[in-house]
């Protein structure tokens, strides 16, 4: 007995401004043919996938084989036969052999089976993109408070003279210039644009502003890659910068 499991009926009252009635379903479609291909998707009951491919049911049980080329052929074949199916019905006839499949899935190592961002945690402590899910402004604050604790200790030792009584939420990173042995440090929390930052950096190393195009600003991001500062937006830069380097433009 073939029962029809609707994915979901399309409710007409929750959609703003959409004309749901313009879909054209050909009523002349062979009803018998389409009902044969309608499959039950019902809470773990096992039903074979009735497509033209004879071994597709068995193949469908194996998740790995499902998306292989072999399966793809019969998958598309199956779809062509049900092309004119009403929109309330699924595009895919899924045979679910729950026990077999679930065991396979559970045994699978998730990290190997899909290309997610890696779970590695580097020295900066934030190896996964966009995790934890906090907005940009809050990320910066916590970053600052961690660095500022380090800076506070340093300031207590050195008796920082030029703080102007500013609150200590600085974001110091190391800066080097190509060809210069001694590196410097700069507080990125004081800047909102590359223009201002570069201006100060060049000044630090004694490059006058007429020659500002002589050097390009690069930075190392949280994954260890060196990038050109101008290639990324300020927000991405601040999010991931670990250290800076000025390199000669003629390169």
């Amino acid at each position, binding site marked *: 007995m073939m029962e029809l499991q609707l*994915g*979901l009926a399309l409710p007409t*009252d*929750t*959609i*703003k*401004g959409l*004309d749901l009635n313009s879909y054209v379903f050909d009523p002349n479609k062979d009803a018998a043919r389409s009902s044969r291909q309608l499959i039950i*998707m019902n809470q773990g009951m096992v039903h074979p996938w009735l497509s033209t491919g004879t071994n597709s049911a068995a193949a469908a049980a194996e*998740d790995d084989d*499902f*998306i292989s*080329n072999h399966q*793809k052929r019969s998958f598309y074949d199956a779809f062509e036969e049900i092309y004119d199916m009403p*929109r309330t*019905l*699924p*595009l*895919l006839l899924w045979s*679910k052999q*729950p026990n077999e*499949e*679930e065991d396979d*899935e*559970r045994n*699978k190592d*998730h990290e190997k*089976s*899909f*290309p*997610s*961002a890696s779970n590695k*945690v580097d020295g900066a*402590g*934030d190896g996964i*993109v*966009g*995790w*934890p*899910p*906090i*907005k940009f*402004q*809050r*990320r910066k*604050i*916590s*970053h600052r*408070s*961690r660095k500022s604790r380090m800076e506070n200790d340093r300031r207590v030792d050195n008796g920082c003279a030029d703080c102007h*009584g500013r*609150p*200590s*939420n600085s974001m110091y990173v190391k800066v080097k210039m190509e060809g210069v042995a001694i590196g410097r440090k700069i507080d990125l929390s004081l800047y*909102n*644009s590359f223009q201002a930052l570069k201006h100060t950096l060049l000044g630090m190393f004694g490059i006058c502003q007429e020659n500002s195009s002589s050097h390009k600003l690069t930075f190392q991001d949280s994954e260890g890659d060196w990038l050109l500062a101008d290639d990324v*937006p*300020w*927000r*991405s830069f601040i999010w991931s910068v670990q250290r800076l380097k000025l390199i000669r433009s003629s390169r």
Partner: protein
Amino acid sequence: MLRMASSFPEEVLEHVFSFIYDDKDRNAISMVCKSWYEIERWCRRRIFVGNCYAVSPPMVIRRFPEVRSVELKGKPHFADFNLVPEGWGGYVYPWIAAMATAYPWLEEIRLKRMVVTDEALELIAKSFKNFKVLVLSSCEGFSTDGLAAIAANCRNLKELDLRESEVDDLSGHWLSHFPDSYTSLVSLNISCLGSEVSFSALERLVGRCPNLRTLRLNRAVPLDRLANILCRAPQLVELGTGTYSAELQPDVFSSLAGAFSGCKELRSLSGFWDAVPGYLPAIYPICPSLTSLNLSYATIQSTDLTKLVSQCQSLQRLWVLDYIEDIGLEALAAFCKDLRELRVFPSEPFAQEPNVSLTEQGLVSVSEGCPKLHSVLYFCRQMTNDALATIARNRPNMTRFRLCIIEPRAPDYITLQPLDDGFGAIVEHCKDLQRLSMAGLLTDRVFEHIGNHAKKLEMLSVAFAGDSDLGLHHVLSGCENLRKLEIRDCPFGDKALLVNAAKLETMRSLWMSSCSVSFGACKLLGQKIPRLNVEVMDERGPPGSRPESCPVEKLYIYRTVAGPRFDMPGFVWTMDEDSALRLS
């Protein structure tokens, strides 16, 4: 029914309709019959477009010719966490350009996660003579030059709110562009700006606007200027301080305390950057009448936080860092019986080890002590099924529940089991739950619970969860009211999506990143369901250059009547009939 409808003169119907504000109600009215549709569309004044690509400006303008207020949302929510690459889209300029000619009497524009340029702001400033409200929430792409244009030209401006936007902050000079004759300011929120505005210009502006009720300053406003500003605006209802740090000086303290005491209407406080505990007592006099307190940028510790919240008996909303700790949350539960919303943010989100003593117990305490608590956002480092079940039983009135455990896939730390049953209890007991974000180790079972029980759920966020497509299938087939679904790093592939393809047209949008949806399945969805835009984002290059079975990096599917968009960057492809030919 037809006879009844036509027996009312249009004017009467229009008058009746003018009392209907809610979009859903207006939509229902417009579907009664053709004449009601016509009357309604001419008198609809307020438009909300939850996805700016779901409809085009000309379509909106054609149907609703007399709009006064527009609200648009652009990028997907996960853009907040840097998951949407720059250049994705969400440009407001085409909307402004279209509305500049069609709606000369437009008064209000509210935007969220959209790209707003200075050109767009300048166009707003010169096109709408009666412009009153500009709210830019988490927007980007504009500079303080654009703000200067608004300040200089919008004579009737009441509200300028830049909440959490990213502004190219060239200087603070823009504020001085408000002419001296300008006095209509009611609400100003510049808390996201970095640079200093002229304090004297600010004080004069505040002083000459008698209706000012909301003022959210930016960090660059020092604490010793705050008293002067408050004295000029004792009628303020909502205040965001600037930096709340200064050397402890008795005269600064007493003028600050005096200024706060003078603000008898003050109900909401925020700001408190770099807060110094010594200045907190300045706000004690007004604490008992506060209903909203945002301390989420205040790096003060639990003793001071506890003392502070214990005095806020009228508090309805609290945003705070996890410095409050379990002990502070117990005090909250004991003293703040009117609490409706709690958000606890992590002070050290990237640290491996906990830096504060904030555990599941704090949330349990608040759920026990605060009978009206219905909205929660909680970052912590450990959770148990028992705690979640207790919270669920305590608070069946919960409508928004967002939990984040810092470590992905963290199990119940006592039983080492997945947190399936805990979240199951949440959806089972909280029958009105509209929004849910889950955390920790979760198998397909939690999705089964959600599909079975979360019938009012409208938005679900999932990360590092589930075992198989069955999980996604439970949600798509069970959650009748689901509008927004966002998923990252879950082992969901093609099957659940394709089986439930029809469901996608009943939702606003679906986001899936770092999952296992193949390019072939995306193409299929895009081809077969015309009123969906299936956008594939892949920074590795054209998906057609890889096998069809290869999973895509990111997938964003949304329903639309506007067809595929044409403002996409190079790493976004729309799957439709044409693209199938182009990409094959």
